[in-house]
């Protein structure tokens, strides 16, 4: 009895210790990483925020969105527009000059202010997600139909951004940023500050997602994933929950996009196209869907692999990426985190495993999804 009480508690303690160690390692990274590496890590952590949002919608609610590149891109463009205006310093952004635009378009004006730009970078993706969710989930358009629609959303957004060159910078996107808050964007102090800001936002996003999935709201999300019709028969309205989860997920992607632009200094339509969008899914799949830590690990690990492999061997990277998609779906439905759960019982005492096999509740909770 005593053992049964303490066992989960010690586990929790270890988990907390692990989180604390990870946070400490992230916060102290500027001390031991070179500037170049720190910038890379900052980019990966921004991607991890998208992965958290995707895990919320895919891992917990069972809705596969291939459109998160769009939400990411909208956030990134919001920040990019602000930086572009800051760099232009009161005049028109350079690409508008080239395209013959003489007056700043009305929808560019609000982005002059940093606060408004950040707010719009969160609200526009969330609003678009709510809009799409409203017209799909309410009509029970779901599963692969929804997935295909999100992919079409990516295509049209990308063609729109390329086509409206005078207002969006076209294929080249937005770049040539210089200043944020009147400070140089390339200075060491600014880079460290932006990195730390990313770490704080990531931790905030993680805590938020964790709170959401542990709450009653999260329970309903998982119930929708496992049996939408049963949830409906129990008197819930799945569409409301799906829309909320989708909007939160899109907002997180928007935030990640804003941070991404600050680190990388460019945003172009190709970064929100189909391939990046589906790569985001792979981060979650490899890390472990339905496990928030998995999403973060997957995003960082895969991007690390990409930056170290793709520069020297681009062909191998594509084979590797394609292979990962196949392996992740066929052999590793629970990702890296799920793998730990899959092989974990092999090392435990026999009776414990036996107990688990007999207890349907335990078995159910351990089932990989």
């Amino acid at each position, binding site marked *: 009895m005593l053992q049964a009480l303490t066992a989960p508690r010690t586990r929790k303690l270890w988990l907390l210790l692990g989180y604390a160690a990870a946070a400490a390692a992230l916060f102290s990274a500027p001390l031991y990483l070179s500037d170049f590496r720190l910038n890379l890590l900052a980019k990966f952590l921004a991607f991890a925020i998208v992965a958290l949002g995707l895990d919320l919608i895919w891992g917990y609610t069972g809705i596969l969105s291939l459109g998160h590149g769009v939400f990411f891109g909208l956030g990134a463009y919001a920040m990019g527009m602000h930086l572009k205006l800051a760099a232009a310093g009161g005049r028109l952004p350079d690409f508008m000059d080239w395209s013959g635009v003489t007056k700043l378009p009305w929808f560019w004006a609000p982005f002059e202010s940093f606060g408004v730009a950040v707010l719009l970078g969160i609200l526009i993706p969330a609003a678009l997600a709510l809009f799409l969710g409203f017209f799909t989930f309410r009509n029970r*358009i779901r599963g692969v139909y929804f997935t*295909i629609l999100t992919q*079409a959303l990516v295509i049209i957004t990308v063609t*729109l951004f390329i086509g409206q060159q005078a207002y969006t910078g076209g294929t080249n996107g937005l770049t040539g940023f210089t200043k944020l808050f009147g400070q140089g964007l390339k200075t060491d102090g600014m880079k460290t500050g932006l990195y730390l800001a990313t770490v704080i936002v990531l931790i905030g996003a993680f805590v938020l997602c964790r709170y959401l999935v542990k709450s009653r709201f999260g329970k309903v999300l998982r119930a929708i994933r496992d049996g939408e019709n049963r949830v409906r028969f129990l008197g819930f309205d799945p569409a409301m929950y799906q829309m909320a989860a989708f909007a939160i997920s899109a907002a997180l992607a928007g935030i990640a996009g804003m941070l991404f632009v600050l680190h990388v200094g460019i945003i172009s339509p190709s970064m929100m196209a189909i391939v990046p969008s589906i790569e985001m899914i792979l981060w979650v799949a490899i890390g472990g869907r339905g496990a928030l830590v998995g999403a973060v690990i997957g995003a960082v690990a895969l991007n690390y692999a990409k930056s170290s492999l793709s520069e020297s061997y681009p062909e191998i990277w*594509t084979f590797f990426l394609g*292979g990962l998609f*196949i392996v992740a*779906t*066929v052999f590793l439905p629970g990702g890296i985190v799920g793998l730990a759960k899959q092989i974990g019982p092999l090392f435990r005492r026999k009776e414990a495993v036996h107990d688990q096999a007999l207890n349907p509740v335990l078995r159910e909770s351990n089932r990989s999804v």
Partner: protein
Amino acid sequence: MWLTQLFNGLSVSSILLLIALGLSITFGLMKIINMAHGEFIMIGSYAAYVTQNVFKSALPKSAFDAYFPVAIVVSFAVAFAIGYLLEATLIRFLYGRPLDSLLATWGVGLVLQQVARSIFGAPNVAVTSPSWLDGGMRIMDGVVFPYKRLFIIGLVLVCLLAMYLYIYRSGPGRRMRAVMQNREMAACLGISTRRVDGMTFAIGSGIAGIAGCALSLIGAIGPTIGTNYIVDAFMVVVLGGVGKLVGTVAGALGIGMFNTLFEWWSTASLGKVFVFVLIVAFLQWRTMGLFAVKTRSLD
């Protein structure tokens, strides 16, 4: 000229139809989202390219024009074989998991693209179309229907007829429809659902191969030729409804025509937005698409 636009719309629709045919059947039958379908188009295109090269180097010049009919058959056969292989080695592990099948086949597509890049090189290659397809039919002043486009429309009609005969007038087609409507019951009645799945997937892939062969007539071909069409083809399936030939035809005509018309009226980028909004609006009214198989089941 509206007549030219109409013809262009018809031409776009016909290619979309050819691509969506295979998708709609595999999706309806096996609930598999085959994202590698675009790569079967690519395989078909490169098969045509290789056939052309063989004809150029091994046969006398006078025989060159005859390569295209041969290329159609070769494209179909190669895509069919690779499709059959893919179904047997990977797809069959993914039944009942449509979203996973989407991701896994996307991975397959990436690998196939890279293989093509390694064999044929990254730059696009061109296929010389046979001389009997040069030129066009002059309808009136300023309106010319190119023979290539007309030929493709004809080819699509032949494929459509063949598919119709296969699905609705043949033994294997009857078994296929039975599995599509009720897999368990069909299996109980002695239909080998495994064999039906394999054949259907292979045929769908083969038709994509023919589509690729047709595409080689109207432009250069490269490793990513399929990705340009795949999402539109999926929209055809969503719009038309799953599992019925007439739905796919209607979906392809709808999307192809509206796309061309909107792009004519506004710009290419805005036209795509209009079509997307129209499709979402349409799905408000008919969630399962134009011609869905009626069913009482909840999902």
